[in-house]
């Protein structure tokens, strides 16, 4: 089923929305009336529904099968959350409505904030960041604001080699120099090496815990104490919070700031690449610097919106500014709060336990056919890490991953973390059943066997997907980033001959 481009089937005269014909009255557009053709083809509703339904079927999604993606926590998205987000009182309210008309919306933000604070053992939370990386930036800016407030112009942020790429990018964006922290042979931060580097020039250490090798940083508290001892702050990347939610509170380990990906741990849908949401929980030391706007509940239980004009009133005078125009990802807040209320404190603890149980089950069901570099040192957390050790010479991790597509699965995370050669990182999450894992394990065992035997058909996989391997080099060398109508000698220039199936 091939589907042509919209620009090949649509017409500028077709519309799927009935609107009155324009009247001939004079406009008051300042003489800027748009005269030229824009080039936007339309489709009637039947055509549009079919176009997008067909396109959708070229996608893979959680609703169709398992996503063994490390660090991405692709879990089931409950349908209740979608229903709640569409309630008119949430979906159909304007961010600048008089606050008297939106107490329920403010309560949602406040309730969710309280859940996040309680689950992490922290002191405050900045709700407005729009995604994980935006949350990281917010956290680092809080740290910088706190340091500046005490007149401390530190220059360096320490980041482990195995960190998500967003960590060093964020630190650089906030004006810091980034230095690596080495890892032990066991895949954890080298505490002694870190201590040796710490000093008065270090603004912060950014740690991921559980780390990107799927291991818990046993020395986390000692790391925090050491960083605090030299006047620095500890930023924790919360992308892997799903492994410990309800089991461990980062605040108890000395963390100063941590972003929470609501689209990972709290199951707001990924949507093919967003929207996400990245609130940042903050320690007592950093909370005063959190950005505007935010929401507080007073002693009478009433909720209030704090913005620039009334920050004094609520004692929040040191905010470092505003990260986005409005209040953050409200549509994600309603979903995440619904998810939390559904699970409750007991259910969230079970989430972490089942996620870790599933990961260890995958690890131990595969470590006889795939090399698990940190397997011997004990259980993993929520994800299982393997290397390409033992593959036939010309078969790569990428080949194995594309072979998995032919078995009906999305590939795992590949070549990350960088500390392991040909890394494969598998995070099953708690919403996969044992039966689903058993099927996946059987499929992966089979592909792994072919990789070891040097099965050449893996080099050209996938064979049964909507597309064979795509030429990414061509795409980057000669970028075609927008459609352009072919110059047609005659006939209909907007309808290609390529056809619709």
């Amino acid at each position, binding site marked *: 089923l091939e589907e042509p481009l919209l620009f090949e089937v649509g017409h500028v005269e077709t519309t799927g929305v009935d609107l009155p014909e324009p009247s001939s009255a004079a406009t008051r557009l300042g003489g800027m009336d748009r005269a030229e053709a824009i080039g936007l083809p339309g489709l009637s509703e039947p055509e549009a529904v079919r176009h997008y339904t067909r396109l959708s079927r070229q996608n893979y999604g959680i609703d169709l099968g398992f996503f063994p993606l490390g660090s991405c926590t692709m879990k089931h998205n409950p349908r209740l959350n979608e229903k709640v987000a569409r309630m008119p009182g949430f979906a159909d309210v304007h961010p600048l*409505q008089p606050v008297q008309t*939106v107490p329920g919306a403010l309560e949602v933000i406040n309730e969710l904030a309280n859940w996040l604070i309680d689950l992490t053992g922290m002191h405050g939370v900045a709700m407005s960041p729009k995604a994980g990386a935006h949350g990281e930036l917010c956290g680092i800016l809080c740290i910088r604001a706190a340091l500046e407030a005490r007149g401390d112009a530190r220059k360096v942020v320490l980041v482990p080699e195995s960190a998500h790429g967003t960590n060093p*990018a964020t630190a650089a964006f906030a004006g810091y120099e980034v230095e690596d922290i080495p890892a032990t042979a066991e895949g954890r931060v080298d505490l002694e090496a870190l201590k040796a580097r710490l000093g008065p020039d270090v603004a912060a250490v950014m740690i991921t815990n559980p780390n990107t090798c799927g291991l818990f940083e046993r020395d986390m508290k000692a790391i925090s104490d050491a960083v605090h001892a030299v006047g620095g702050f500890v930023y924790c990347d919360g992308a892997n919070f799903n492994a410990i939610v309800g089991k461990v509170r980062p605040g108890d380990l000395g963390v100063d700031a941590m972003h929470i990906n609501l689209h990972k741990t709290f199951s707001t849908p990924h949507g093919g690449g967003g929207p996400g949401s990245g609130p940042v929980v903050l320690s007592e030391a950093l909370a005063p610097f959190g950005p505007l706007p935010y929401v507080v509940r007073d002693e009478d239980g009433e909720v209030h919106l704090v913005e*620039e004009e009334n920050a004094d009133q609520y004692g929040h005078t040191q905010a470092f500014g505003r990260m986005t125009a409005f209040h953050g990802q409200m549509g994600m807040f309603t979903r995440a709060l619904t998810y939390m209320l559904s699970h409750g404190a007991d259910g969230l603890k079970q989430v972490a336990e089942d996620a870790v*149980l599933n990961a260890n089950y995958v690890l131990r069901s595969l470590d006889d056919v795939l090399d698990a570099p940190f397997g011997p040192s004990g259980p993993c957390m929520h994800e299982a890490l393997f290397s390409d050790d033992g593959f036939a010479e010309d078969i790569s991790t990428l080949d194995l991953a594309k072979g998995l597509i032919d078995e009906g699965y999305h590939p795992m995370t590949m070549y990350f973390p960088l500390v392991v050669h040909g890394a494969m990182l598998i995070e099953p999450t708690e919403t996969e059943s044992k039966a689903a894992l058993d099927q996946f394990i059987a499929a992966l065992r089979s592909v792994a066997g072919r990789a070891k035997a040097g099965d050449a058909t893996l080099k050209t996989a996938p064979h049964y997907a909507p597309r064979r391997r795509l030429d990414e080099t*061509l795409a980057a060398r000669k970028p075609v980033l927008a459609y352009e109508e072919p110059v047609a000698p005659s006939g209909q220039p907007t309808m290609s001959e390529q056809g619709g199936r």
Partner: protein
Amino acid sequence: MRYLPLTEADRSAMLETIGAPDVDALFSDVPEEARLTGPIEGLPMHASEMAVEKHMRRLSKKNLAASDAAFFLGAGAYKHHVPASVDHIIQRGEFLTAYTPYQPEIAQGTLQMLFEFQTQVARLYGCHVANASMYDGSTACWEAVAMASRIARGKKRKVVLSGALHPHYAEVVKTMAKFTEDEIAHASPALQAQPDNDGLIARIDDDTSCVVVQYPDILGRVTDLQPIADAAHEKGALLIVVNTEPVALGAIKSPGEMGADIVVGEGQSLGVGLQFGGPYLGLFAVTSQKHVRQMPGRLCGETVDAEGKRGFVLTLSTREQHIRREKATSNICTNSGLCALAFSVHMTLLGEKGLRRLALENHRLACHAVERLSKVPGVTVLNDSFFNEFTIRLGTDARKVVRTLAERDILAGVSLGRLFPDNADLADGLLVAVTETTTEEDIETLASALEEVLS
């Protein structure tokens, strides 16, 4: 727990395979003093779907939904009718629950949609290339400023913001600039029928990396940008144009046509809805091919597969932080994929004919509102030009009037006092937006109420 498929029997069997006595043994790396033994105190236990739905519905009903009011708010977020099929399509599991399309063989649905989206945005903006979306208009605006700095390679440090730029957008730029040490030139707008373009031009100098203007501006005014573009280019600065109402571009000239270098904006008007401010959709486009590799965010490009069939991939990703780490061109990782889909579906349903009609219908009703409100004693209409939003002066504190009318389920607009709390000169200004969802009855309701309250 309805979302957790493991049974107790499964758990036992799996622990046996692992060789662990119990689940807690798997958490042995967590120091014992940090391990919680029971559910966190003070939080409720799990609840049925019915109970949770009831709770959330109760909270929802405490809010006054836009559809239940006579509604005139805009200022960067607009209420438009979204066709029912848009929501149907974004709820397809294959779109809703898909991952970022890093594996193009099984993500052509998302990728082709993004390619179509990029083309639609580029054409709407009169640009060459658009990216695959950003968080929202305000962060897209900041990313544009940062891009201009990158292009200036640190040699120009000054950013000139129009006073008639949305103050929240200006605030985001200023916040970020504090840390990147760009210098921001900005002042709040004067209540005049025409924006002060000459004043803006006068502030552009050789140290200016970019000039940022909004179109239509925060007071609703529509003005020719070409003179500003010319002045900026003369000083080697880029013109960044911000648009917060994409529907307007069905009626008025595109920024690209008038010399803009980067056009950014909020896409919420099409497909996305109000949602109390988010998730929204940042649009980002450039007019020149040479700036493409400096763009922030994801880009989707056309290519072929091993059999020569056309296909799409994320491309030029060496700009992105997950690859380039501290050398990345932007802070964006996750973007607004599903909102981009909603925008693109809505735009496809409209098509050029529908978009133009929609724009003119908005403008027609806005003209009607201007006419009617100008007859209210005490009300002065500021604008000569406007699209679907304009400013009126009430001769009294507009914030109070807004609050009074809200008690009657009239959401009268956004007071300039809320947007510019520090500038008392603007306190009697009210920004009124009118779209195709506004009825003549709504306009009459507002006008009559104002007559009453202002008398």
